[in-house]
């Protein structure tokens, strides 16, 4: 609120102050100012770079047509560079990828899947959701005409299954969440009654907290979490509200707190609270691969596909890349003045590289994580039609870890694809070691705990990607830790003579598309500076 003291005139608005700072000092200062004033959150994106004035005829070779590579090519072309992209796959996008009906995918080891999904259905083997604060990625999606829609992360109607609780019967997230909050509120309010918090709170604040707990936990007048209209408004009624004679709802009985504890519900609650999973989340309409396609439209004609890079030389004041056509087997070289290399480190480490010893060591030091995804197509959306689950995720302590219902095409008829497994830790290695058919069968078996009588019965077919067997990455993402960050990160991102690395591995937003974008923008800004100073 403004005091509006007479005679001082109107204070400048926040927007006017920002504009003035921006005009005087450029975007970095503007960003810092925005941060202080509370506008920019959770991202280092200050708008697209405004690179210009490249020396005419200067060539840049970009290795990899993933998001980092294509964005580098797009921005550097705009700045006046002559850019060519070399890509191993026969498609753009890299890990930004969707498998559609009719697609064929061959993993390392030779197992080939021909995906049989109905038109419009897909599996996103890699990235599948976009946090609202990944502003750089969102900016380019808008700029490149990639349509987005909401991604349902949290759905209270979805299920939680634990082999350690409720005799292995899946329960509604809503019930467990309500009972968790309610029980914690009741216990805390008891602690206040027993003077257990006297050392931490004044009497007045303890009273305020007690009242707050009643509201937050849906406690009754006696500060108990009980079977009541109040608690059932959260966890659901045994007989829901209706009209006419039987309109009166019947409250439901909360679960025993021991069972709630056994269920591990707090882990799911906590997961939804992470900044990476908070609403709003997005996904592209029609599959994550639409982003790769959107980026590819901006660099049309600049990508050479089916090229396997085998060496990078920086001798003689230029970059020389040797690459072999995976179709014809013909090996050739491409020369350029500079190189933006987005090849995943595990693959780059196997090449003949002409880089500084420090960068070479950094490239070799970072292992890659693993995960397996399985997409399962069903005849109809029984989770919507029979159980009113529209999008969201059901969690389990089985190896598949979760199943995620499609956020797109809600309330439509016809076949739909559920993400039937997204594995972590040891389960990823176990699943990746199976044949694709075995993975699909195991996912179907484990996921059927959520929807018995439907899951196996209405299954049509599946597709799966095990990232340790993905020919173009040999894993999911770079797996940094505190030690390797300290020892190698700055070397890894520094311009090395005429070459700079970019990708999620060269960021602190590891494993997210945003990391690839921010890394790319930072890398090309420094490479451009280097080229102008040369």
């Amino acid at each position, binding site marked *: 609120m403004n005091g509006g003291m007479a005679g001082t005139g109107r204070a400048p608005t926040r927007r006017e102050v920002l504009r003035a700072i921006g005009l005087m000092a450029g975007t970095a200062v503007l960003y810092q100012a925005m941060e202080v004033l509370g506008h920019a959150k959770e991202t280092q994106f200050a708008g697209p770079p405004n690179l210009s004035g490249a020396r005419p005829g200067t060539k840049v070779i970009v290795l990899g047509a993933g998001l980092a590579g294509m964005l580098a090519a797009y921005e550097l072309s705009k700045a006046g560079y002559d850019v060519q992209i070399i890509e*191993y796959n026969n498609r753009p996008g890299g890990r930004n990828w969707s498998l559609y009906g009719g697609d*064929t995918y061959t*993993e*390392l*080891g*030779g*197992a*080939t*899947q*021909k*995906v*049989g*999904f109905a038109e419009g259905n897909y599996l996103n083997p890699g990235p599948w959701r976009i946090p609202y604060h990944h502003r750089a990625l969102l900016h380019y999606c808008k700029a490149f005409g990639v349509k987005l829609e909401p991604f349902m992360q949290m759905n209270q109607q979805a299920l939680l299954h634990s082999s350690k609780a409720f005799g292995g019967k899946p329960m509604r997230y809503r019930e467990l969440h309500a009972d968790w909050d309610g029980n914690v509120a009741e216990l805390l309010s008891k602690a206040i009654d027993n003077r257990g918090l006297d050392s931490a709170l004044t009497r007045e604040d303890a009273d305020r907290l007690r009242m707050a707990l009643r509201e937050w936990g849906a406690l009754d007048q006696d500060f108990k979490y009980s079977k009541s209209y109040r608690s059932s408004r959260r966890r659901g009624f045994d007989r829901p509200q209706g009209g006419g004679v039987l309109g009166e709802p019947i409250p439901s009985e909360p679960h025993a707190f021991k069972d709630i504890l056994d269920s591990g519900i707090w882990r799911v609650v906590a997961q939804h609270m992470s900044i990476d999973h908070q609403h709003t989340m997005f996904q592209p309409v029609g599959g994550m691969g639409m982003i790769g396609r959107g980026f590819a439209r901006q660099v049309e004609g600049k990508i050479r596909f089916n090229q*396997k*890079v085998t060496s990078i030389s920086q001798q003689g004041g230029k970059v020389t890349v040797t690459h072999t056509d995976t179709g014809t087997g013909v090996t050739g070289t491409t020369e350029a003045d500079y190189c933006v290399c987005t*090849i*995943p*480190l*595990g*693959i780059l*480490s*196997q090449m003949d590289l002409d880089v500084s010893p420090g960068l070479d060591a950094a490239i*070799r030091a970072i*292992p*890659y*994580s693993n995960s397996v995804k399985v997409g399962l*197509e069903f005849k109809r959306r029984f989770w919507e039609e029979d159980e009113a689950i529209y999008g969201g995720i059901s969690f389990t302590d089985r190896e598949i870890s979760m199943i995620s219902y499609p956020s797109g095409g809600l309330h439509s008829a016809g076949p739909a694809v559920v993400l039937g497994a997204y594995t972590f830790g*040891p389960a*990823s*290695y*176990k*699943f*990746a*070691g199976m*044949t*694709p*058919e075995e993975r*699909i069968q195991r996912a179907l078996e484990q996921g059927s705990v959520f929807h018995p009588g439907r899951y196996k019965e209405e299954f*049509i*077919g*599946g*597709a799966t990607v*095990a990232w*340790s*067997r*993905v*020919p*173009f*990455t*040999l*894993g999911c993402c770079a*797996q*940094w*830790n*505190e*030690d*390797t*960050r*300290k020892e190698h990160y700055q070397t890894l991102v520094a311009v090395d003579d005429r070459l700079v690395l970019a990708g999620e591995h060269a960021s602190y937003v*590891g494993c997210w598309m945003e990391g690839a974008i921010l890394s790319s923008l930072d890398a090309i800004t420094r490479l451009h500076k280097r080229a102008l100073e040369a």
Partner: protein
Amino acid sequence: MRFVLLATALMVAAPALAQKAKAPAAPHPGAEVYQNVCQACHMANALGGEGAGKIPALAKNGALEASSYPIMVVTGGKGAMPWFRGQLTDQQIADVINYVRSHFGNRYKDKVTPAMVAEQGVPAPKGGFREQ
């Protein structure tokens, strides 16, 4: 089934067909570790694979002759391969190295012990397995 497995290069390593007539031998303690971990990349037949990069074959692999080498790689990782110190026990690491060195066309007679893994292995990184 609309999912069609067009081709697989899977040839399950057939351990000792000659023993068929005898009572089935207890499975090698390293076999389970291999199937649950190593096979994810090196394949069930230990032949590895090659795309933009290569996963080396462990079958008929001369680099396995000096047991200190697999001990170093399994405990310390190599390139894209993560370290498994801290994920697997020294006993499991010894078992799986012994399994690979005596299967898939490898016939190395000497055995790796957990004590050797403890002594020669790369320590688990202080910074943990990954960032939290």
